[in-house]
């Protein structure tokens, strides 16, 4: 499976490492080359400096042949925009993005973008832990 990940933060770098070990072809994009230090030392995929809301950068990252696109930057809106470009312009079959704001997540889910809100998920986990 060919995967393009946008945002090489802790989550992005970790996901890239996990998929890479399983033998998937991974390309990770970040606007700051310094972020790539988070990738595991034996990472065999491609790390590219580029902006995931820019069509040219996405093309360079191989979005046209990608099976999966994951948007994991710190900005909800950037994630949402990149995810929509991947889905509607490049027709990537599986597009997943992170949206911290739960209400915005709901809206974009209803618009056909598969989105996860760490806010809701983590609050739920914490609540269950506390109640046990």
């Amino acid at each position: 499976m060919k995967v393009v990940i946008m945002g090489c933060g802790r989550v992005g770098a970790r996901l890239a490492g996990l998929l890479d070990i399983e033998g998937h072809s991974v390309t990770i994009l970040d606007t700051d080359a310094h972020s790539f230090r988070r990738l595991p030392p034996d990472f065999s995929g491609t790390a590219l400096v580029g902006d995931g809301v820019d069509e040219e950068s996405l093309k360079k990252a191989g979005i046209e042949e990608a099976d999966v696109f994951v948007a994991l930057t710190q900005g909800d809106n950037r994630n949402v925009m990149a995810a929509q470009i991947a889905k509607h312009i490049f027709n990537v079959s599986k597009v997943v993005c992170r949206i911290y704001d739960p209400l915005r997540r709901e809206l974009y889910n209803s618009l056909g973008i598969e989105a996860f809100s760490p806010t809701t998920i983590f609050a739920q986990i914490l609540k269950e832990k506390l109640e046990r």
Partner: protein
Amino acid sequence: MYIIVVGGGKVGYYLARALLDEGHEILVVEKDPDRNEFICSELGSVCIRGDGCEVATLTEVGTGRADMFIAVTGDDEDNLVACQVAKHKFNVPRTIARISNPKNEAIFKKLGIDVTVSSTNIILENIEQEVPTHPLTHLLNIRDKGLEIVEVKIPPHSTTVGKAVKELPLPQGSVLSLIIRSQQKPIVPTADTILQAEDQIIAATTPESEEALRTALRGF
């Protein structure tokens, strides 16, 4: 009309001021407390502090009854999301987004934004017009029809000087509508009109045949 403006920077502020002067009901949504205070002190209580992409904020300001929603922050992605929330969550009939990166124009259109205004393109076009040697200037885009109105200047040594319009290999879909000559009234060209040096030709064309039109009018 009730119009919501997201972003209280220079564009947002002057836009709100102009719309207020026209008698509209305006609300500006701005994150920054200093800008917020500035706008309220200049224009009255027409600015609230908040994130214009957040459903909660937009509910609070009554986006559901807005006639128009204009996002003019400096970030393209924020403008996109604000307009999409307004459109899909609150069914605002008309959404307008400012964009800085001209490449985003097509993307925004595809993602359902009614109107985009590209500040970069507007500045470029204005500067192009002022550069005397520039062969072709965009004057106007008629987006729904895929047409544009352009101006082409005929340089003195062009091979087309002295030729009639009917001799020019004009591309399909391009129409010459006006010739402006110094010291004369503008003329509507016919097939027999002879081109002169320094003519300014106003033409309608498609983006695809723009290059062919330029070559046809100016020669090689």
